[in-house]
Structures are given as structure tokens and as C-alpha cells.
């Protein structure tokens, strides 16, 4: 029997019981739509994480202190392993383009009667370059600011609008924990999110350490490497140098943690990938349920059409023809459901982007995957009922009411 005729015949028998076919296919529609939407959200999350991390600066390596176990004991208290001298030493490496040591803190900001809390970070002149930050209006921080512990501040875009309202903050007197600072510049907006510079105030590192917080250690050292391909070499060199400088013995663990941007991308990619596959597998369960629905209906259909099968056999249908007929019916239901599900999945992804504010990108492989999975489900769950139909005894089948 020709494939075209088989499909036509399958279509006819499916449409003759349209409601039942529709409800059966609905299982597949929902399953596939869920998978498509989840993959869309996952891929969207992945991409937005990627852009965010890339926006932190290119070729970036970040060194943070860590609580390495030392001589069998875990060091308590705050971690104070990184110093300005470490940063200076790192800057001497040939593969390093720039070094931006950073001391973080949180402080009360006051301008006239306006109050707010914000992170106040002490940085050096190179920091803006290393973190790919730009000054929207005014000036950046200079080496001289740092050397002379000047009380000058660069404010993030959100801080500027929140604290100064419509006024230009340039030249204004900003109090940070009661100490007066002069605002010299406003950072360009970078977009909100975790650790966004928009919500921070940058002051010279020395001012931060000596004047405001009285601490000598750093929160992190940002290193811009010349060539991204060299970053692992630089990482190794930095690690060696810091171990040496910190006087660590071979058996001691590192008291710092080096992460390149590639590491972060990988980590975040892994995290969002894990989430996507977790949600995807939940969605895939509904595909399984859809498949079982198809199998159920196909079994009912074989039973109902036993006599038809007998007639077809009597006029010359081979067992393989009957098998193919029922298999094609199952595939048509699952594939049809899959196609509708893809459409619905796109709609759902668009709706999530529209109303949920999440970036959703349905990857193109998801379409091929859904179609493939639909066919596979049709075959897997259709073959049992189809074999049952094909192995009917024609005499018995014709006797059926």
C-alpha cells in the first residue's frame, strides 16, 4: 500500500472521530509546548547571563580572598589575604594589561535631606577600564586622587537619580558615613542586576581604606589580561605569585580564589543549563503522558475497528499493511500534536517574555528535537497497538461485531 494512501486513510479515520483525536493530541500539544517554552526560557536566561558577564569587562580575571584551610585549621573572621601590594605585584606581569584592586563596603549616603544606603567601593584609576565602565558626565578617578586620599566620588546612575533627583550631582557635596565627598562624575548606566555599578559609589582606594573604613585588605583584584587566550597562563602565574607572597607552604590551600570570565561564563552556563534540563525533564514527563494517551486511544481504536481490519485483510492487506496503517495513525496524532505544540510553545515563550519580563529565545534545535521526539513517541507508543492489529486472526476479526 502506498504511503500517501496510508496517510490519507489514517487522516480519514482520525478526523472521523475528531474530538477524541483532538483530546489525544492535546497531550502531545501541551507536552511539546511546555518543552519549547522551557527551552526558550533556559536559552534566554543563558544569553542574558552571558551578556551580563561580558558587560563586566573583557578578558577579566577576578581574584578574591578565600578561607583556605591553613595548617589544619580553618581561619576565622573576615578574610584579609589580599593587599594593594599583591595588586601591584600582579601588575608587573607581561600578560597583564591593567589591574584594578577593589575594596568593598556599604555606607550611608546623604545629600541635603536625602538619605540612602549603597555600596561604596574603593578603586584605583584603572578600575573603570578594567571593568569596562564609562563616565557619563564629569571625570573619572585619577592616580593623584588615590595618592592624596582625596574625598571625591563617582556615583552610579541609580544613586545619582535617587539621591540628587533632577539635579546634576557634579560638584555637589555628598556625605558618606558623615564624611564629606565631592562628586566628580556620574557613571553611565549599565543595567540593573546583581552587583550593578549603577547602585554603587566609587571613591579612591586609599580614601576608602584609610579615611572611611580603616581597613588595609582588598575585597578583590580585577585583572585585565592582554589576550583572552593567555588568561590561563596569567592565572597560573598569579596563583604562584600570591602563594609566594602569602608565604603558603606546598601543603597549604590557596587563601585566594582566581576566576576568569570564562570560568564565570561556564559556571553560570552550567547553572542555567542545569535548571533548563531540570525543567525540561519535568516537561518531558508530560510528553510521556501524552504518549501513553496515544497508546490508550490506539488500543481502543484497534478494538473498535477489529472488523475493519478483518475486511482489509480479506481483500488482501498484508500484516505489514495493517501494522503500517495503525503506526501511521499514531505518528500522525503525535506529530500533529507536536507541530501544534511547537506553535503553542512559541506563543507561550513570547507571552513569558512579554508579561514575565524574561528574555526568551527558543533555540532552533528545539524545533527539530520536538519534531523528532514526536515521531519517536508516535512509533514507540503506536507500535504495540499496531502489532496487535496486525496479528489479528482474519477469521476472528471478521466475526467481531
Amino acid at each position, binding site marked *: *500500500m502506498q504511503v500517501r494512501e496510508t496517510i490519507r*486513510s489514517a487522516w480519514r479515520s482520525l478526523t*472521523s472521530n475528531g474530538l477524541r483525536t483532538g483530546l489525544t493530541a492535546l497531550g502531545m500539544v501541551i507536552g511539546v509546548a511546555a518543552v519549547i517554552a522551557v527551552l526558550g526560557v533556559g536559552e534566554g536566561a543563558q544569553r542574558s547571563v552571558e551578556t551580563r558577564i561580558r558587560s563586566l569587562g573583557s578578558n577579566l580575571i577576578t581574584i578574591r580572598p578565600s578561607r583556605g584551610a591553613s595548617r589544619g585549621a580553618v581561619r576565622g573572621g573576615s578574610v584579609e589575604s589580599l593587599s594593594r601590594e599583591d595588586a601591584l605585584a600582579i601588575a608587573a606581569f607581561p600578560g597583564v594589561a591593567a589591574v584594578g584592586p577593589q575594596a568593598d563596603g556599604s555606607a550611608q549616603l546623604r545629600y541635603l535631606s536625602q538619605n540612602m544606603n549603597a555600596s561604596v567601593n574603593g578603586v584605583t584609576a584603572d578600575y573603570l577600564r578594567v571593568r569596562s565602565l564609562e563616565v557619563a558626565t564629569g571625570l573619572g578617578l585619577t592616580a593623584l586622587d588615590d595618592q592624596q586620599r582625596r574625598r571625591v566620588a563617582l556615583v552610579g546612575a541609580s544613586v545619582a537619580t535617587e539621591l540628587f533627583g533632577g539635579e546634576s550631582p557634579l560638584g555637589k557635596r555628598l556625605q558618606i558615613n558623615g564624611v564629606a565627598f565631592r562628586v566628580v562624575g556620574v557613571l553611565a548606566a549599565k543595567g540593573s542586576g546583581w552587583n550593578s555599578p549603577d547602585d554603587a559609589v566609587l571613591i579612591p582606594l586609599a580614601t576608602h581604606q584609610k579615611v572611611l573604613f580603616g581597613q588595609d585588605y582588598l575585597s578583590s583584584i580585577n585583572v585585565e589580561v592582554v589576550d583572552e587566550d593567555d588568561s590561563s597562563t596569567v592565572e597560573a602565574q598569579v596563583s604562584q605569585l600570591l602563594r609566594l607572597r602569602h608565604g603558603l607552604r606546598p601543603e597549604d590551600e590557596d587563601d585566594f580564589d582566581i576566576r576568569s570570565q570564562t570560568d564565570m561564563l561556564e559556571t553560570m552556563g552550567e547553572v542555567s543549563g542545569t535548571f533548563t534540563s531540570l525543567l525540561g525533564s519535568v516537561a518531558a514527563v508530560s510528553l510521556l503522558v501524552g504518549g501513553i494517551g496515544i497508546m490508550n486511544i490506539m488500543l481502543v481504536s484497534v478494538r473498535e475497528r477489529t472488523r475493519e481490519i*478483518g475486511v482489509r*485483510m*480479506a481483500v*488482501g492487506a*498484508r*500484516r505489514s499493511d495493517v501494522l503500517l496503517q495503525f503506526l501511521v495513525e499514531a505518528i500522525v496524532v503525535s506529530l500533529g500534536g507536536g507541530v501544534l505544540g511547537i506553535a503553542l510553545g512559541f506563543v507561550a515563550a513570547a507571552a513569558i517574555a512579554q508579561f514575565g519580563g524574561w528574555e526568551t529565545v527558543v533555540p532552533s534545535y528545539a524545533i527539530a528535537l520536538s519534531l523528532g521526539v514526536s515521531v519517536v513517541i508516535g512509533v514507540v507508543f503506536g507500535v504495540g497497538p499496531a502489532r496487535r492489529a496486525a496479528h489479528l486472526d482474519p477469521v476472528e476479526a*471478521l466475526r467481531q461485531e
Partner: protein
Amino acid sequence: MSMRAPIAVESLVKVYNPHRPELAVRAVDDISFVVEAGQSVAIIGPSGCGKSTLLNILGCLDRPTGGRYWLGERDVAQLDDDELAAVRNQHIGFVFQSFNLLPRMSALENVELPLLYASRPRSRDAAISALARVGLAERAHHLPNEMSGGQKQRVAIARALVTEPSMLLCDEPTGALDSRTSRDVLGLLQRLNDEGTTIVMVTHDLVVARSLHRALHMRDGRIVDDGPSAVVVDNFIHLSEEEACKSERPSAQLGAR
């Protein structure tokens, strides 16, 4: 294969439940006969005598437990499932008591059905001309439930004819029809037989049986009488009456008129 293929069965046996002696039923018990090409043969006998089983074996729907069945030059016992399907498709046409048309297909599509399974593709024209042969060309696009019983049976006959088989196997073809439409259908079968199609028909209707060339009288899986239909039918009636008298309770002797 030509239109003319004689049937020959030799010591044909069909046992149900052959592996459990206490349940074994010899539905067809050592039957031998030959049907010449172009003959029309009625198989008569009481219910459960094995007529339908015999017809199913002749139609390659069922396999005999023993004996030989020659359809033309073919030894049917040697054929596998797919070859049997091809034989059913090409050489045998079935006509059933309950028509067995597929309800959601038009008359024409029902008639086309065997063509879909034919090894060599044939055009729709064959189906149209088969419908014309049974006088239903103008009803080609009607669904079965839009037709009378007689028309349905004629569509079924057209379906049986469409691959130009050498024989028609009819299982009570007039059993669901009133006497007038029975005559029409019978006339149609007669005409096909005159044109050379071999017909083997299981029937309870002795008038129908009498109108064919030859009759086989079956009882308990055996052929007890075989000859010109008029003679076999008369003997059958005679025998049935005798039995009715003997048993004092004249049970409903099926087919006795």
C-alpha cells in the same frame, strides 16, 4: 494468472484446539473435492457443520490442519502470510452476509480498497467499471448508510470483482436481504458466473442453492452428498423431514422449507 483456476482439495482437515484432545473439534474432516473453473457450487448443511470453516480455508483466511488445497497451480499450504494476502487480493473475492463495507468510505472508495493492496497499481477506472458492472455507477459517492441493503451488497460484490479474481466466495450473500433484493443480487451473481467467474457459496436458502450448478451437503465436517444442486437439495429436504419425524420434537431444522 488466468481467470480460470480450478479448486482442488484433498483430504482437507481443520481441527480446532489440536493440542488439547479433550477440546479438539474436527470442523472439517477429511474433505476432498474439485471445483471446475466457471462452476457455481452451493455448500449447504446445518449450522456448525463446518461450511464456514471450509469457506474460510478456500478463501485463504484460515489454514487447514491437514490435507492439500490447490488453487490453480498453487499449493496454498506452502504460501506464507504475505503470499496468502496476495492470493486473496488477486484471485479471490469475498461477499459476506453483512456486506462488511467500511462505513466511512464512499461506495467507490470501498470498491477501491483491494486496489490499494494490489502489488501492481491500478487506476480508479477499474473501481468505476466494477461499480458499473453491478449497476451502481451513479451511486459511487454515496456512503454505505445512504444505500439500501441490496445496493450495499452490490457494492460489496463490486469490491470483490475489482481485482478480477477467478472466484467469488459468498457467505450467505442473501441472508440479510429481503426476497426481491435477494433475487437481484442472485441474478447479478448468476450473470458473473455466466461470464466465467467461479462461485462457491455457503447458503441456508435452498432456493438459492438450487439455482447453482452443483451443491455439497456437509454434516459434522464431512461431505455427505455432492452432485447437481437439484438432486442434492431434494435429498437434503428428504433427509431433514425424516429426521424431524424421528425426533418427535420437530426442532427447527435450519434451512428446511
